[in-house]
């Protein structure tokens, strides 16, 4: 079982699309998969047509009064479940802060689910906060989408420094390019130079594609409404590459 958080300090980089589409591919490959929508905006819940509502809200959930198992909703796809978001998740930082050992909390809540799933994707809100620290503690892999812009280098380095400073040795950071537009000279150049400086960036890039943008309209993972396209193939290649680099523990 692996817990994979899709995370970036910056917002709007394709975190939710990554979590939803990779989880869909894993499930199609017969792996029991769960997506936990931790973002109060509830984008992944929206993509799966599940109401962004958790009984008792974030307080009851973090307190463990309601086991996560009871909050899970099946999606329309075999082997793929969702733990929906709730608007109260905007206060998750405060709720966690009120608990003892707040950064360990998420891991504790997830433990009973580890036997039921092969992969758990955590769709995370941006920023570095108490919630993200808790996510880092709970996850095995931090899958970080990077848009090829000048700011990307900074955020990637910030993230690496954070992991190093906080001795999060268990956490494997896997960065990859997202929303890449090869027609743009700047994207191409940044991708080339970043790849040289950071060989850990995956070679598969997710293109900027209207197919992916349509997810909001279709309200389902990309692979469920487009059988074969540049974007679906890129996600499949990305998943294969990730499986190849995941540390065997």
């Amino acid at each position: 079982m692996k817990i994979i958080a899709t995370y970036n300090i910056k917002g709007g980089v394709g975190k939710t699309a990554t979590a939803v589409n990779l989880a869909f591919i894993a499930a199609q490959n017969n792996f029991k998969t769960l997506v936990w929508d931790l973002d109060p905006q509830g984008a992944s819940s929206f993509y799966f047509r599940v109401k962004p509502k958790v009984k008792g809200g974030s307080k009851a959930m973090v307190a463990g009064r309601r086991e996560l198992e009871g909050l899970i909703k099946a999606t329309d796809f075999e082997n793929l479940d969702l733990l929906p978001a709730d608007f109260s998740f905007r206060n998750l930082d405060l709720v966690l802060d009120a608990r003892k050992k707040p950064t360990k909390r998420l891991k504790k809540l997830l433990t009973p689910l580890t036997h039921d799933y092969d992969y758990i994707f955590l769709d995370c809100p941006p920023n570095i906060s108490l919630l993200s620290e808790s996510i880092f503690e709970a996850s095995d892999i931090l899958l970080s989408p990077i848009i090829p812009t000048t700011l990307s280098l900074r955020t990637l380095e910030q993230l690496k420094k954070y992991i190093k400073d906080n001795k999060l040795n268990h956490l494997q950071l896997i960065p990859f390019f997202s929303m890449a537009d090869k027609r743009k000279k700047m994207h191409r150049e940044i991708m080339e130079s970043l790849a040289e400086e950071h060989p850990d960036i995956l070679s598969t890039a997710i293109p900027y594609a209207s197919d992916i943008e349509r997810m909001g309209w279709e309200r389902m993972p990309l692979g469920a409404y487009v059988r074969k396209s540049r974007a679906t193939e890129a996600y499949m290649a990305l998943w294969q590459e990730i499986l190849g680099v995941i540390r065997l523990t």
Partner: protein
Amino acid sequence: MIAIPLHFDLPKNLSAKKFINKLSKNLDIQLSNQQYTIKILFDSFDWRLYNADIICEFNHSNSASQLSLIDRNSGKLLALENMPDMMRFTDQFPKGRLRTTLAPVLEMRALIPLCQLPHNAHQLNILNKDQKIILRIQLDEHELIANQLHLYPLKGYDKALKKVTNILQNTFDLNPTKYSILKAGLKLEGRKPKDYSSKFRININPDMRADEACKKIYQQLIQVMQFNEAGTLADIDTEFLHDFRVAVRRTRTGLSQLKNTLPTKEINRYADFFAWLGQITGPTRDLDVYLLSFKKYKEVLPISLREDLTPLYTLLKDKQKHAQKKLTENLSRSEYRTQLNDWETFLTQQPITKKGKKNGIHLTVKQLADQRIWKVYKHVLKEAKDISESSPAEALHDLRKTCKKLRYLLEFFQTLYPEDDMKIILKALKKFQTVLGDFQDYEVQEINIKQFSEEMMANKVSPNTFLAMGVLVQYLDSMKCQARAEFSNQFALFEQAENKHIFKNLFSNKFSVKK
């Protein structure tokens, strides 16, 4: 927790179309798929999945093939995977839940089709106002059995299941039933679950005439041979041939140990026939055993030599293929068919009614069983006591054969005696047989592997292969010595007072001949 699926049998007059139309009046239904599908149910020949409460279904249509494992009691789905082709052995399955569920239950046994159920599968989704699926329904419109309806609840949407169940009860007068597909499918084939077991058990009336009872025993044995014949010819699972051979051996034991119950002419004829059958099936079984042991052979070698043993596997596989071909030829011969049919006919004929000198006509089966078992038991004790440290291997082999005779006799007649006592002595005998079997098997394997190495010399095999085979021979030899050293301990256990007392108590009564 996800609610368990519910199953319903639909009445004959309710067509799929009519049902869906009626249901649509109350619910937002999406027909997601409609496919002509063939459902094939699988189990191992010895019903391992059934015994573990698992139903294994392979659903094959033009667009998809899926294998699912279902809990036989609750109908709950245990595992489901897309699988383009059905696999026979679990190690051929891709890694995943399905394989991890099946492997410990099936071990080396093959999955064998039990029945085929062609049907039109209508997959329906019940949607909420966001057009999200909240319940899945499958309606199987069968050609051969009653139509079936399955409700598959989705995690987090229990209310939808309740709502639809209420509609089915109130509008259609349908109530959930047990998931009955296996029973219905087997019925079509004229079969029942667990209708075959490798264990021999036959109920005999103690007062039955001995010759009649023996015919009953042989009849059951010929059924076992007939059941396993097709699987033996198709080479699906090594166990078919194994059980076929055990039935042949049991018959041979009967013909030699209970010979006075049938006319001498018939005894001689069929003793020859079954000896021939034992002989022609032997080489394939021996090679099956080597191939089944091959994993173990590799494990006993140092890691650096393990792959060097592969040429031996190739040789064994080739030899097995060749032996199987010969076996198939022999079992396809008309002489085989004629002899077996004649034997079957003979067994159904009325026994001789006029009194003669033959014991079979004068004795009850209980008297015969007492007499034979006691005699063979005494033989076992004598042969075993005569074995010393310096006795040749043949002495142990002969004892092994005598023990087998005793075991088969005990199994033939076990229902004539108290169950608890029989359990104790059969268990003790089995344990004693294990050490004798190990000794023989290791010795034969050691000799044969040496022979195989000579054959392989001609094939330019790498020297490391011979090195690996040398290590293997050394291992087999050490195991053989271990079994030999263990013999006296195991005999002491078998010979202990409790067992002796049971044997004496059950079988040593003097039998009386009817006048």
